[in-house]
């Protein structure tokens, strides 16, 4: 036996030990949507406060109503639990309590400047959402069935979805297929008093395909395509003159990239989404973040998100009362051309199976950051979001 062969022989138990550790860790890996059954129960709680900026220059731009927009308090709960040797159960609950004003309509004055009609600041609503999923795992595949419902005093949504995940090529490639159906029912408040639709419904059917590919021992990429078809009453019943086509077909192409930088023990994350739909609305979203550990148990993750959209084909800066109701129109700022920039910062504390995280996001939007047009909607949004979350595994 030559020297090199001896070195290989003596090193074998250590290499085997390292390989076993790596295999054990890898068995719990979640490189994307995973087909591995969770081995521990995970519980997470999160409380958030979302606060929209008041409308700027409200004295000049608001014809009626309040400049103070939504404030929403959100509480969330998540549970993931292995069941037997091949199953897992997920539960997800959230409660939102909101108050504040929202735009009802808009007009354009003689020099082309927009003015908005806002609701009063007395809108109060809450939303409760509960969803559960059951997943069956096998060697290289997993099936998942999800059902959920959301309730507001004037809005109900029920939905169901299935997911199939399969791993190929020594688990280097993961294919995920999703299909879902949702049925929503609206019962707008004071419908008779304000001439709103009394009751309406809409359905959403969705299909999505994504492929996750391990590129190297430090890089993963994911690509996906999603298609959603919405049909039914798609207008906003609270707006004064909002008529939207009763069908909307949405497409989205997505790409994601994760890269671990060993020298800094940092993880770089980049995501891109290209969206287009039958309203002729087109949008690009780019998101980027870097997660870096510090002081042994802490992590910091600054992030940035850039969003750009074009306007829908029927968007109007002011409501058109001389346009027949058979033709679509909407002055909703969400259908105008605009762009948005989010800056985010998350700080996490990790100790064994416990993780506590604080997150802050500042969102600003401007017409000039959009893809096309100069809609200059005065109700474009800015907000702050602060969240405190805790996760525990046992």
């Amino acid at each position, binding site marked *: 036996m030559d020297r090199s062969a001896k070195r290989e022989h003596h090193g074998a138990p250590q290499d085997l030990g390292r390989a076993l550790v*790596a295999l054990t860790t890898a068995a*719990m890996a979640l490189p994307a949507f995973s087909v591995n059954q969770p081995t521990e129960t995970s519980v997470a709680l999160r409380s958030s406060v979302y606060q929209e900026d008041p409308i700027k220059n409200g004295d000049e731009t608001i014809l009626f109503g309040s400049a103070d927009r939504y404030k929403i308090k959100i509480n969330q709960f998540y549970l993931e639990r292995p069941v037997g040797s091949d199953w897992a159960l997920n539960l*997800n609950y959230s409660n939102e309590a909101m108050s504040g004003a929202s735009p009802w309509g808009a007009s354009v004055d003689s020099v082309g400047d927009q003015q908005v009609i806002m609701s009063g600041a007395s809108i109060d609503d809450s939303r409760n959402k509960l969803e559960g999923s059951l997943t069956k795992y096998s060697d290289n595949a997993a099936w998942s069935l999800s059902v959920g419902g959301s309730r507001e005093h004037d809005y109900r949504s029920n939905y169901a979805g299935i*997911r199939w995940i399969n791993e190929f090529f020594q688990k280097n490639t993961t294919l995920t297929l999703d299909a879902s159906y949702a049925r929503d029912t609206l019962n707008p408040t004071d419908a008779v008093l304000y001439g709103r639709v009394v009751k309406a419904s809409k359905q*959403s059917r969705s299909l999505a395909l994504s492929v996750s590919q391990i590129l190297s*021992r430090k890089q993963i990429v994911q690509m996906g395509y999603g298609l959603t078809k919405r049909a039914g009453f798609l207008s906003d019943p609270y707006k004064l003159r909002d008529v939207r086509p009763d069908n909307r077909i949405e497409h*989205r192409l997505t790409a994601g990239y994760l890269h671990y930088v060993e020298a800094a023990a940092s993880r770089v994350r980049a995501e891109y989404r290209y969206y287009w739909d039958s309203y002729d609305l087109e949008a690009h979203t780019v998101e980027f973040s870097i997660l870096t550990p510090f002081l042994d148990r802490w992590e910091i993750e600054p992030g940035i998100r850039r969003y750009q*959209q074009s306007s829908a084909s029927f968007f109007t800066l002011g409501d058109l009362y001389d346009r027949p109701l058979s033709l679509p129109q909407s002055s909703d700022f969400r259908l105008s051309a605009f762009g948005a920039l989010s800056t985010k910062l998350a700080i996490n504390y990790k100790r064994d199976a416990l993780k506590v995280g604080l997150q802050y996001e500042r969102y600003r939007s401007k017409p000039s950051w959009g893809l096309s047009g100069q809609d200059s909607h005065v109700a474009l949004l800015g907000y702050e979001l602060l969240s405190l979350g805790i996760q525990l595994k046992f």
Partner: protein
Amino acid sequence: MSFQSKSRLLLVMLVLGFVSACQTVAPWEREILAKDEMAWTEDPLAQALDQQVYFSKEGASGGLGSAGGGCGCN
């Protein structure tokens, strides 16, 4: 070529570039990939909240996976 077509072409080229660059990684070489931060859904509640906020405040919606139910916010 329209802006829309250029965007799709760019994305397809990006995808092909990544896929052609990939190599097979054996299970025992995945210690880094097994880290929590290398999961696409590291924090399901944060992801759900982000999606809900963007869905209710922007014209485009959805990401990886299928759409859930709607809400009165949009």
